[in-house]
């Protein structure tokens, strides 16, 4: 009986490992980075397609380039601060209930990603044969 219990417990642990593994690899950051490559981009703005994109386009890119979004990565609070700043300085109106949609979208696709803080290796080097003059 005791042996059986141990066996059941062990099986439980193993099955836990199996069921948790895919979840943990899909969580924070890395999963989204992989997903970014396969997500569809809106041809007009270059922003990632999503059911909330129409609202982002209406509220944000009618006034400024979508590149201001594409270039930046902020937390939800960071994006909210940008909206407040535009409301204070750039006549952006109160987004009302639609603010949630906009922030949901920005947080989902344009959140900070981890990177090295010193000097990263040079990347995307386009090698060419140098003919010196």
């Amino acid at each position: 009986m005791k042996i059986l219990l141990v066996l059941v417990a062990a099986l439980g642990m193993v099955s836990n490992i199996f069921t948790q593994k895919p979840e943990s690899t899909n969580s924070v950051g890395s999963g989204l980075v992989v997903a970014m490559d396969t997500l569809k981009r809106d041809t007009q703005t270059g922003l990632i397609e999503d059911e909330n994109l129409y609202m982002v386009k209406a509220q944000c890119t009618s006034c400024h380039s979508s590149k201001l979004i594409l270039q930046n990565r902020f937390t939800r609070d960071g994006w909210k601060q940008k909206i407040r700043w535009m409301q204070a300085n750039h006549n952006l109106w109160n987004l009302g209930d639609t603010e949630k949609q906009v922030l949901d979208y920005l947080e989902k696709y344009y959140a900070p990603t981890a990177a090295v803080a010193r000097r990263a290796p040079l990347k995307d080097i386009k090698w060419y044969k140098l003919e010196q003059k």
Partner: protein
Amino acid sequence: MNSVHNRRNFLKTGSLTALVAALGSDIVFADHLPKGYIPVLLEEGDALKGKSPEMIVQGDKPWNVESPVHLLDDRITPVDKMFIRNNGLVPEKIDVSNWTLTIDGESAKAPKTYTLADLKKRFKTYTYQLVLECGGNGRSGFQPQTSGNQWGQGAVHCASWTGVRLKDILADVGIKDDAVYIGYHSKDIHLSRDPKKESISRGVPISKAMENETLLAWQVNGQDIPEFHGYPLRLVIGGWPASVSGKWLSGISVRNKVHDGAKMDGHSYRIPRNPVAPGEEVPQTDQYFKIIESMPVKSLITYPKSGAMITAETELALRGHAWAGDRSVKKVEVSIDFGATWKDCKLELPVNRLAWQHWNTRLKFPVKGYYEVWVRATDNNGVAQPMVSPAWNPGGYLNNACERIAVKVG
């Protein structure tokens, strides 16, 4: 006129039809559009016209365009390789014959207005080569990422500017003893199209304004200043963040206090008074932030372009420029061993104060393989560029970390 406001009012209704219409499907939904609506794409001209096809577009509304470093190889930067950093939209109508410049402010004895022709005829003309570098040049090197255009190191140029000295104009107007600062006013259009708002209105202390090299310029490299660089009149102040060099110049206020125009506050062109940890939140008040003045020492390798492959026997010729804000550069060195050892380069004197200095050298590589050539400049106060990123700050300004190129030998 008020098209964006109308569009915004329109958007406030929040109806799906209204929103879809505002997305640019302006033909399909034409009957839903408010009167005076201007489709986004027709609002401003193309800043890339006449520019090198290699320029990097950081943004197109407003226009922000960067030069790849190897394009900056010329001793005097040609217009087609000059970066653009705009805060608003280019003025819609520029009437040169009626263009005026008004000097006013608390510390001007009386306001005075000049036509462009007045400036050209009545005052002595000067030409200087001046380094204009965006305060945020190099921003993309900061971690965590800071807000704004993610510039590489190409938001800098040194062109030849022709105009009159601001100090001659201020002497003609007459300024009071309590003058401490000047602030410029420009004819560009705020992104919100609110005519009451200025896109940017910055300035410098009166001492910087009175320097010989501070010009009200109408020519760059012997030609009229192009539209996207401030036609027909630009304030040009070398060595400081280029945002003090106001384009489409229509006014200068002589102030009895630090100028308080648009983008003089918050973390705009300001850095923390005391060093902060990367990512730290800093209250955006005068107590915690100070205005950026002189830009720091910096250098670029403009030849060869990164990625050069050479044969093992070849000696590699390298060149570039170095500058140091209000200071001069006294030494430029290169390293092929990640900064373990440095080799002195030939360094020219600046053609005039606040112009960049040209450097060159030749290098031999000990064995075949992958190399990085690093460059480091030291200013006349003995201050050198750091190899790692310098102090993180919320606006991502003043990244003068050493630049480098990749070279493969053999």
